């Protein structure tokens, strides 16, 4: 038999507030809780610290002993040996110093560097209001202008060409409005797109030439083969991102559509593109396409590559967006329908904002992947940063240099991709509206 204590209890003296034990707060507490909570974790912490130490102790001297001024790898090594003793390791940053402009612009004429620079600044100004909705909405005018002014600055030539291309959009939209009102939204879209395409393929060129012959207004043209370095990577990346996004949306909608032909075409396109490696598409762009095009037509290589990168990412984009669409409850469609919104209004105002929000992480992953994939164009002979690394390595002076060049290219790519990742997290937080 145990004797039970009486259940009734009254506290007579209230407990004083005490400071927590020193092992649970402050730095000591943190270290204890996070690094050495138990034996196994403690050992892992020590091992990890050792690995970090060996990495840093190997890399740091190499980074700190860097040489910024030299004209060849041999000279670099000599300087390092002189300064830090025979056998000391050191980075030869001189190669980046010396070849910086080529890594940035390729063979783009140096007296015209202001043009890509200006295009880049315009691009940043144009993207800003899209990324951050607290900026003045007037800035969207720059956003609309960038796709026309940007390429004109980069390639140069007659100012009438981008204007005529822009007119194509105006024509498309007007035809769409007109036909749409008479015979339904879908017909309007199809006819509108057709009208724009016909204008671009057959009429915009001659029209630009005609106006140019009357009012000549042009800047020095630069050929595509002179494009290179990060300028090329950014040009390809940005156009790929900007074009694959809307295309992906339309493909995702097509795949969900009730119209059998549209649906089959979308599914076929997506599955075909996803089944083919990007590098194959790039080879098609660089080699095969010439066989199919009529003799004498010039179809710019960069434009061809852009199209391939775009359709490649668009297929993945469509699938990411379809994931977002599938996650939406059916009730959202029904509520939009019940309120009398038509298909496009429902998509634009209700469905897409939510589906895209759900798909943000996957969409941004695709953007990041696309940007990194632009380095594949070095295989078909375009001199993007990786192409330039190889060109520089092939030089007698810089033969044998590896880490510095690839490290620099990797660092710049990392900056871009990391910013995209951070932006996606910011956006997700901002669009969080529930609990």
């Amino acid at each position, binding site marked *: 038999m145990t004797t039970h204590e009486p259940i009734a209890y009254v506290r007579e003296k209230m407990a004083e507030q005490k400071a927590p034990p020193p092992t649970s707060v402050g730095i000591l507490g943190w270290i204890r809780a996070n690094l050495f909570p138990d034996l196994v974790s403690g050992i892992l912490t020590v091992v990890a610290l050792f690995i970090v130490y060996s990495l840093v102790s190997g890399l740091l001297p190499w980074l700190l002993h860097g040489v910024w001024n030299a004209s060849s790898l041999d000279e670099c090594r000599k300087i390092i040996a002189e300064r830090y003793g025979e056998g000391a390791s050191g980075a030869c940053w001189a190669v980046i110093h010396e070849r910086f402009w080529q890594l940035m612009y390729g063979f783009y004429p140096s007296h015209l560097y202001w043009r890509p620079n200006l295009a880049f600044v315009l691009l940043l100004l144009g993207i800003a209001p899209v990324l951050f909705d607290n900026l003045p909405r007037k800035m969207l005018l720059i956003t609309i202008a960038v796709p026309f002014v940007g390429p004109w600055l980069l390639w140069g030539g007659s100012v009438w060409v981008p204007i005529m291309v822009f007119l194509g959009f105006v024509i498309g939209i007007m035809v769409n409005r007109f036909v749409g009102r008479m015979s*339904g939204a879908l017909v309007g879209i199809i006819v509108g797109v057709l009208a724009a395409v016909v204008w671009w393929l057959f009429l915009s060129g001659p029209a630009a030439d005609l106006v140019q012959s009357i009012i000549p207004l042009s800047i020095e043209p630069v050929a595509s083969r002179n494009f290179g370095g990060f300028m090329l990577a950014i040009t390809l990346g940005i156009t790929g991102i900007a074009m694959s996004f809307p295309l992906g949306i339309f493909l995702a909608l097509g795949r969900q559509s009730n119209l059998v032909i549209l649906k089959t075409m979308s599914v076929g396109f997506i599955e075909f593109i996803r089944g083919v490696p990007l590098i194959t598409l790039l080879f098609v762009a660089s080699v095969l396409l010439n066989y199919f095009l009529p003799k004498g037509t010039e179809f710019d290589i960069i434009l061809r590559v852009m199209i391939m990168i775009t359709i490649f990412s668009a297929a993945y984009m469509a699938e990411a967006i379809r994931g977002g669409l599938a996650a939406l*409850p059916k*009730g*959202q469609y*029904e*509520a939009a*329908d*019940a*309120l*009398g*919104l*038509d298909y496009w*209004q429902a998509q634009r*105002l*209700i469905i897409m*904002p*939510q589906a895209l*929000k759900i798909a943000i992480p996957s969409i941004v992953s695709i953007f990041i992947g696309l940007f990194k994939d632009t380095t594949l164009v070095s295989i078909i002979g375009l001199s993007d940063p990786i192409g330039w690394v190889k060109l520089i390595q092939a030089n007698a002076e810089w033969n044998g240099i590896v880490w510095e060049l690839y490290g620099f290219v990797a660092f710049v790519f990392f900056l871009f991709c990391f910013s995209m990742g951070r932006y996606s997290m910011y956006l997700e937080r901002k*669009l969080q*509206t*529930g*609990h």
Partner: protein
Amino acid sequence: MAEPATAREIDRSQMTISDEVAIEITGMNKWYGAFHVLRDINLTVYRGERIVICGPSGSGKSTLIRCINRLEEHQEGKIIVDGTELSSDLKNIDKIRSEVGMCFQHFNLFPHLTIMENCTLAPIWVRKTPRKEAEEVAMHYLEKVKIPDQANKYPGQLSGGQQQRVAIARSLCMKPRIMLFDEPTSALDPEMIKEVLDTMIELAEEGMTMLCVTHEMGFAQAVANRVIFMDQGQIVEQNEPKEFFNNPQSDRTKLFLSQILGH
């Protein structure tokens, strides 16, 4: 017997039923694939009527009222809403949908828009009402459902009852002539059911034509002028609430009522 939906006296002065036909359904049949969900439905709803539809689960109640605004397509028969026949013509459908409001069991508010934006969206885009005017109208209806102070919150920050009242306000902002309710209270906790029912009662008092699928028999007795009982895709019995509850004719109705009222 079921509890009354509200403690207060219901003002019946505006609850008048006119001769004007609001909805006319004749010989309507609907199939899901080979499954015959709705069979030979004939129903005439006059303006100002408040109809409660009840019946066992799967009897086709939701399907019936969803056919009225074409969320579901019927294959046979005729549905005429406000003088416009439902056909596959998109213009007719959009016209009818903007005249007929609907409230769902799960509210279906748009979670990415504020309460105010939820309410002004359709007036602005469908009715082309200027934003300012649409916001005034929305505020009016939000006051009516007693949540004007939540206008700038998001649906996810509201309780279920508040969300359903917003959903009602959102429909009312389109100034519909007919309101459809599909079990508006069955996803709610008991104390929230009352606030939603009160809102619906007020709506009835103003003479709104209402079709309401619900198992709130107290509401049916207090407000409805007609109760329809459905089973296996058919209208089995309909009558005035008093007669319907006290003197059901069909055996199915009796069985259903005994189950739902628990005696």
